[in-house]
């Protein structure tokens, strides 16, 4: 990378390196101390029986936390729920936002940015405010859902949406969807506006139908955006926490536990530090693998 033909360029490389690191220093400091170090500690502590107690020393137990994990039915249930959430919400989020984006990207400027804002609103409103209002809307007695559905004659008895294992996870996925389409829509609108128009026009001249135009010409061009959206929505769905904690606390009877919520529960309610970290490591591995697969797909596509 660095050609060192004479003393001059070596001095230059040194100068650049020193300047480079000095510029990087403040950022690197925060990055190493508050991101990289805890990440390593997460892996390290997962091999210990560790509690939050002041005088209790951590005990090295090797892979015992991991062995226990795969015999822990609550963890396996949480893993299953998380996968359900990811498998349902990620494709729907992508398709929904692609459809919305393709409907609004060629509208007039003001309309396009108005709709972009509207679909982003639930994200900006914040997970706590969004969750508490949905909790009210889903409420057994005073919720608007039961009222509307009863008036329309779809149900005849009030349904305890969040208290019934049959419905609770579905409700959570619905709320998650409304809070996760904002960013993909913005990305798709910008990707669709950057599609090479001359290709589209050429295809139209050749008599391509609307569908052909979309799948043959636009779709390949917005592929990188789709992959990026897949990665971020997957990571976000895996980290679903605030919704669970505020809506159901993992209940009824652990039916809505996600990995992230169960990590929180183990570490901060049961004070089982090492065990919680072991779950964190599993989550990291799953996400790293998925990201790697998605990046590989991206590379072969390019």
């Amino acid at each position, binding site marked *: 990378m660095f050609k060192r033909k004479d003393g001059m360029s070596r001095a230059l490389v040194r100068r650049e390196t020193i300047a480079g690191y000095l510029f990087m220093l403040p950022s690197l400091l925060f990055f190493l101390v508050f991101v990289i170090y805890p990440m390593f500690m*997460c892996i390290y502590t997962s091999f210990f029986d560790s509690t939050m107690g002041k005088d209790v020393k951590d005990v090295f137990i090797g892979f015992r936390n991991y062995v226990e994990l795969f015999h822990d039915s609550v963890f396996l249930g949480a893993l299953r729920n998380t996968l359900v959430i990811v498998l349902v919400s990620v494709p729907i989020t992508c398709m929904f936002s692609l459809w919305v984006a393709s409907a609004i990207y060629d509208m007039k400027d003001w309309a396009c940015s108005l709709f972009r804002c509207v679909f982003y609103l639930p994200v900006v409103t914040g997970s706590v405010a969004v969750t508490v209002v949905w909790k009210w809307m889903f409420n057994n007695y005073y919720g608007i859902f039961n009222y509307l559905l009863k008036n329309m004659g779809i149900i005849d008895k009030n349904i305890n949406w969040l208290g019934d294992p049959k419905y609770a996870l579905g409700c959570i996925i619905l709320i998650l969807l409304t809070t996760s389409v904002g960013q993909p829509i913005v990305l798709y609108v910008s990707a669709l506006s950057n599609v090479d128009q001359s290709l589209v026009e050429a295809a139209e001249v050749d008599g391509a139908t609307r569908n052909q135009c979309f799948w043959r010409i636009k779709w390949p061009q917005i592929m990188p955006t789709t992959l990026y959206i897949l990665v971020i929505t997957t990571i976000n769905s895996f980290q679903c926490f605030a919704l669970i904690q505020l809506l159901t606390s993992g209940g009824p009877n652990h039916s809505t536990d996600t990995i992230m919520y169960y990590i929180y529960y183990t570490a901060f309610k049961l004070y089982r530090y090492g065990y919680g970290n072991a779950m964190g490591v599993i989550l990291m591995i799953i996400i790293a693998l998925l990201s790697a697969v998605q990046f590989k797909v991206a590379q072969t596509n390019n």
Partner: protein
Amino acid sequence: MKTKSTGYRIFSTIVIVLLAILFTFPLYWIITGSFKPAKEINAKSPTWWPQTWTMKNYKTLMSKQKAPLWEIEVPFSRYINEDGNPTVISSGPTVPAAIRWLVNTVFMAVAAMLLTCLTAALAGYALAKKRFIGRSIVFTLIVCAMALPKQVILIPLLREMSSLQLYNTIWAVIFPIVGWPFGVFLIKQFAEGVPSEVLEAATIDGASELRTFFQIVFPMIKPGVGALAIFTFINSWNDYFMQLIMLTSTRNLTISLGIAKLQGENATDFGLIMAGAAVAAVPIIIVFLIFQKYFTKGITMGAVKG
């Protein structure tokens, strides 16, 4: 436009408008709900528009708990004092806790925003324009960290913060936000557009590194910094999980955390909870609407080559 038939266009517009109404409905429900009296909140058939407007929910919210409006500590005094508590040099008048939570949240979001922008601008510029040894390693590390779930580090982070005696202070929330490398990545994308000839010319003219940065580079990457600023502000405002773990005492809570606690204690007083939710959500929504152009730009720029 030619690619869409008129019939389809009308159909899709109608669906989009309906969806837009559904997406704004929760916010509408928060705001109208916060002004409804208990009678309407707990009625069997909900009212779409408050029949009688009341401020009672807000009054209850403001009378719940009290806290001083601000407390200024002697920096690092908690490390010197034997009991581990800081020396407070100035504390404000006693106000409703919700007001203090807003002050905390604004302070946290502004501090996180300023620190992130400064550090990320410097680092992003160096990554884009300096050819230093180890550059590609640092960059790979940053990209890999971004692909990992940031919430899994919260458990070790809690321990680290307690040993640094930052636990239950607002800094415990601010520092990890500053450390998150998305900002560096974003600024790098912008800084790559700065022409190298301009930088070389500045060096030949004898401008120092810092002067080159502040007088030449910074004005050129300003749109990127603006996008990062608004992005960090909104995200840190809403970063509930970290706040939940790091902050405990009433006077240190953020507004989202305060509302979540309120909800835990008064689970069925929906009017009161909606008033809290409105106080938490309306300021950040206004900020978003004012700066949404920069915000959109930040999202799209961060995705390029993601």
